[in-house]
């Protein structure tokens, strides 16, 4: 397969936490102060959104939206005690928008369908379809000024708050409280995404994957990011969006005067010019 890099779409924007945001550390580390459910922080102790969290969530939403959540289209990514515990979509369809944007892995993959028939199935290699992943997602850094002095005065910790939730026993009405740390609503993060434009065996991507990526952004706005999303957290909005296209030839020139191909305050105002 011949793959040529035609250029890069660079999407710069801010991610605004519309409700409190909890992206957990994913382990059971206990912070000073005893918060048992803390958020990921960078080396300076500031919360951030890991690119992997954003990418993973967007991939999962795209799988649904593109109709890829079917037993014969899901591969078993984590199995436990003979059960397919975590399944993600991956396939060998060269035109698949999910795999095309978010990538495929080398190695052998067993579909959920095969796994249910035979948990020891050997699986199939998608190597023939593997091309470099088009989407790159950077870690999104906190914009410090988005947490105003007034908000800071009311926070439990420097950048974050502690939220308490109760589970109530339906027979005795006794409450069982839990606490978790979250970034308060209103916080903004500086995000950057890159969508590579390829020419694969003579066929040019054009804006196809950029459009798919914008679809993924819209899906995320109507869902949530991070933990406890079904109970209120993690509603996000993309704001101050700017998309720049850099043709591969631009990398040989001074690229300081590249003009954005699209600019908008929010996704519903975003219009791509077609060229």
């Amino acid at each position: 397969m011949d793959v040529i890099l035609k250029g890069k779409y660079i999407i710069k924007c801010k991610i605004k936490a519309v409700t409190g945001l909890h992206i957990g550390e994913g382990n059971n580390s206990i912070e000073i102060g005893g918060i048992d459910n803390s958020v990921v922080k960078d080396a300076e102790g500031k919360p951030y959104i890991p690119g992997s969290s954003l990418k993973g969530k967007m991939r999962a939403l795209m799988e649904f939206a593109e109709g890829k959540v079917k037993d014969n289209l899901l591969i078993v990514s984590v199995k436990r005690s003979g059960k397919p515990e975590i399944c993600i979509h991956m396939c060998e369809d060269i035109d698949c928008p999910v795999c095309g944007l978010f990538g495929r892995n080398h190695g052998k993959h067993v579909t959920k369908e095969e796994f249910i028939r035979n948990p020891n199935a050997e699986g199939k290699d998608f190597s023939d379809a593997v091309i470099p992943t088009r989407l790159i997602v950077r870690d999104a850094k906190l914009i410090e000024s988005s947490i105003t002095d007034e908000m800071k005065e009311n926070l439990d910790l420097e950048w974050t708050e502690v939220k308490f939730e109760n589970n109530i026993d339906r027979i005795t009405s006794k409450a069982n409280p839990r606490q978790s740390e979250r970034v308060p609503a209103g916080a903004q993060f500086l995000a950057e995404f890159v969508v590579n434009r390829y020419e694969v065996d003579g066929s040019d991507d054009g804006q196809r994957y950029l459009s798919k990526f914008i679809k993924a952004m819209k899906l995320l706005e109507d869902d949530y990011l991070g933990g406890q999303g079904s109970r209120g957290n993690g509603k996000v909005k993309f704001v101050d969006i700017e998309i720049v296209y850099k043709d591969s030839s631009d990398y040989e020139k001074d690229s300081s005067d590249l003009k954005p191909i699209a600019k908008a305050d929010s996704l519903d105002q975003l219009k791509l010019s077609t060229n």
Partner: protein
Amino acid sequence: MAHEPFESRTYEIEVLTPTIIGGQDKIQSFEFVKDGDYLYFINFDRLLEENLFKESFIDELSRGLSTGGRDFNIKDVLARYNIDFKNSSKYKLKLEGVKRLSKEVVPFVKSAGRFYIPGSSLKGAIRSFVTKALNRNFIQLYENDLSSAYQKTLNSADRRNSVDPKYVSKDAEEKIFATPYESPFKHLKISDSDFVSSENAGVYEIKVMNICGGQVKWFAGRSNEDDPDRAVSIIAEGIKPGAKLIGSIKIEKDFVEGNQVVRGIKEKIGVNATATSPTEFLADVLKAVSKDYIQREINFYTRYKQAQIVSEYQKLLNVLNSLDKNQFLIQIGFSTGYLSKTVGIFFNKNHFEKLAKVDRQSKIYPELFPKTRRLVFKNGQVWTVPGWIKVTIK
């Protein structure tokens, strides 16, 4: 695969009666100053920063605070140093007919100082009301849990072996709604609401009504009094009736219908709900539960001649009867009582006899339980019941 709409919809909460979603630590008397009809909540960070060079003030303040605030009147201290508490407060709230302040105020939950209704609270209230709509076989599972906890308590001489009152219904919950990963409630997503200004919030006075020997009394610490003026007051921050809050909600088809992994709530429901859209189905269920619950409370308060509360509930019933298909009423938050949060509405004397053994910390009178209610007072009079909201899904 069934088509699932991806867009979330908007919910609007209209507060009908003062609604209190309790935050964590109580606000102590040295943290607020009363001035006329308002409470000003002191911002100590700013107060200290702006008066850093008034050494004796700082000394006096730290001495006062270190004694836990007893015999310490912050208003007097500030006045002595010519400090205007209005400039050193985070926010002020109107006292909504509060006759007597107490030493502490129950805070409303806030995010970076701003009032809102957490999605978890609305979702929790919906879950509690859906539980009350379950069909008889599922309610039986709760009764079984209660019986087994009771048996365990009887059989264990050592208290430590008895069942923790926080987890008595664990088995039933898992049998009915499965694990969090497989629960139909995974398909009900409710965001936190937006923020409301402190003008939409106020300070409310709550007293505890207690039925003693068939008569209404008011809880006053060690005794129960006939005169509510002598009763203990609970002071709490709440959102005012009329305030509106919005957020987003997704009621997925799987929540109602179920899928390969999860059985939906539809097949578990015992009340009459016929709507086919997920939103209208849920609204049907919640309306049926609220109606039954309100009717039972009207009967209770009628028996004890609380005309004001009966008329308040009658108003709620009128609102309920005039709702659209995408609207429901629900009770939410602090001081809403045992019946609003549990399946105890279906329990009788036998159940409460068992509950009294299982939950030794609470006073349970099997003949009449719960025999107390928390009511909002205004200008020394019984006014209304807390926590009723109207939800519209748009």
